[in-house]
């Protein structure tokens, strides 16, 4: 499927680093609907990630996988196209809910109660690692930012990889809780992904980095 006309062809990821935008995807999802996310994700990424990994994944990871699935389907991104890509992902404050539960259990029951899944699934590296596994791509993956106000870091990281020839393109991912509230059934999570490829075009003047990329956020979001 061709990209919609409103999708700019080339943006400046950083000064002197123009990239071609290949796909965008966005998901907004309340906590109460997380269980319904898992089935389509299992169907789509099932040959790469197991049901148990999807069960243990952080909520921000699930939102990001859903946004990725949406972008891949909508823009027809192929495995071959992603062969030389990397993943730079910014989960904002991951693992808050799991840490709260872990602390309560630890104080009540001791060391044996602590889940072995917190470290693999709830830290800054977890999201990019799982996305690279889900996509089956072998370019570098990196968690970057991880705290409020660090959206630009993802652009910086991906731009340096592309300009340096480490990747031919990549997925940039931002995942966050709306209003910074991550607990309770009314909490709403959001993920935004952009697939970019190195471009031969000369850099054009104008906005750069997150300022340029944030203009690509679709108003509509799935599911």
């Amino acid at each position: 499927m061709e990209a919609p006309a409103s999708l700019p062809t080339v943006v400046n990821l950083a000064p002197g680093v123009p990239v071609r935008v290949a796909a965008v995807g966005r998901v907004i999802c309340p906590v109460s609907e997380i269980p319904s996310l898992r089935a389509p994700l299992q169907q789509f990424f099932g040959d790469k990630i197991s049901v148990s990994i999807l069960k243990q994944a952080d909520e921000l990871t699930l939102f990001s996988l859903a946004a990725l699935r949406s972008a891949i389907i909508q823009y027809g991104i192929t495995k071959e196209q992603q062969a030389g890509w990397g993943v730079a992902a910014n989960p904002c404050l991951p693992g808050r809910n799991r840490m709260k539960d872990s602390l309560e259990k630890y104080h009540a029951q001791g060391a044996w109660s602590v889940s072995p899944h917190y470290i693999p699934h709830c830290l800054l590296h977890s999201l990019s690692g799982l996305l690279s596994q889900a996509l089956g791509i072998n370019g570098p993956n990196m968690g970057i930012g991880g705290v409020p106000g660090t959206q630009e870091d993802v652009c910086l990281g991906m731009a340096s990889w592309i300009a340096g020839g480490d990747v031919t393109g990549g997925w940039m991912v931002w995942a966050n809780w709306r209003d910074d509230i991550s607990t309770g059934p009314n909490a709403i999570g959001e993920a935004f992904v952009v697939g970019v490829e190195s471009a031969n075009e000369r850099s054009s003047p104008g906005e750069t980095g997150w300022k340029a990329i944030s203009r690509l956020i679709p108003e509509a979001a799935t599911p």
Partner: protein
Amino acid sequence: MTKEPIWITGAGVNVPHGVTVAEVADGLLAGRSAIHRIDHFDVSNHPCQIGSRLTTFPKPDGWEGDFASLIPVEQVAIWCIVSALKNAGLWESRHNLRIGLAFSSAGEFGLHWERMGHMNPDIPACELAYDQRPLIAFLKQNLGLTGPSATLSTACSSGNYALAQAKRWLELGWCDAVVAGAADLTLTPLVLAGFGNLRALSRLNDDPQGASRPFDKNRDGFVMGEGGTAFVLEPASKAKARSAVPLGELMSVGLSSDAYHPVIPAPNPVQAIAAVQKALTEARLDASAVHYVNAHGTATPVGDTAEAKGLREIFGENYRNIPVSSTKSMSGHLITAASAFEALACLITFERQAIPPTINLREIDPECDLCHVPLTAREGRVDVAISNSFGFGGSNSCAVFRRV
């Protein structure tokens, strides 16, 4: 993009072996373990009860702000960064330069939430209202650094990824110099229990200093450690212009992903090999030019075997001649801060012309057949060293350093 050499002109460190490069070099080359029984919280029901804990948090001269009230990871990061800038001769002039900051501290908020949860059980755990300030913003503001900055994490390989970012930023001309490194203090009840319940940690609790046994037939997992290391990197021309003394050249960093499992390294180390080969290719070096390999070598059964297999494939028949050691046998596994510290171990081999040993390597696992440096340091010429680091999430990396 400039392709001129990138030099490392300053280093700062705070690990249990010491708070200066000289102290660390002495400790590693003496084959001294920094691992002890954990006594700062009750470990009686933990599967692993040992670690390499940081207990010294020196305040650098020239730091004008309140130091005592900072959280430990901030204190460690500040010590390392200020020491590195002073070592490079850029501390006084830092305000006049565009200095970037690529730093890793993966669990900064998780560790803060946990610390608050143990210290103040009466307030609601992990509430937004009690969140701390982000580390990087605090460091940039208080150190007066004005270049680009980022916190990044690829788990155990984070330090190498920070070095890779720093190199590219300099090649792209985004800054005059970059401070790159990592700090992590993860010997906390939940992290120790989490890794312990993953069955990733050694359970040789009765012999702390003998517990970290990379490549040994009887290895049973890693031992956690704490600390931080920071470097100043700059283009060689700028360093030469101000007569800076290089600690070494960062020739390249090769990166790849296993795309295999969140925790378990791929048993067939194709992508780990790819990371090393990318690094050697960018450095324009043949594998035979390598004089020392600082292995990832965590002492997990699967990881060490896969790494040894990969190194044998990279070096071919020559694998019997290229010395390999794992300094984690002495320092423990510094987790996010591991590869930054191990980059320093490589630079130390240039200065001392000696290779730190893998202590506790008494019975080499036949599946880990390599040119090991067991038990005691080995003197010898080291002009090129590589540092392997492979992290959770399948993040592979290899950094290549050259003596200048």
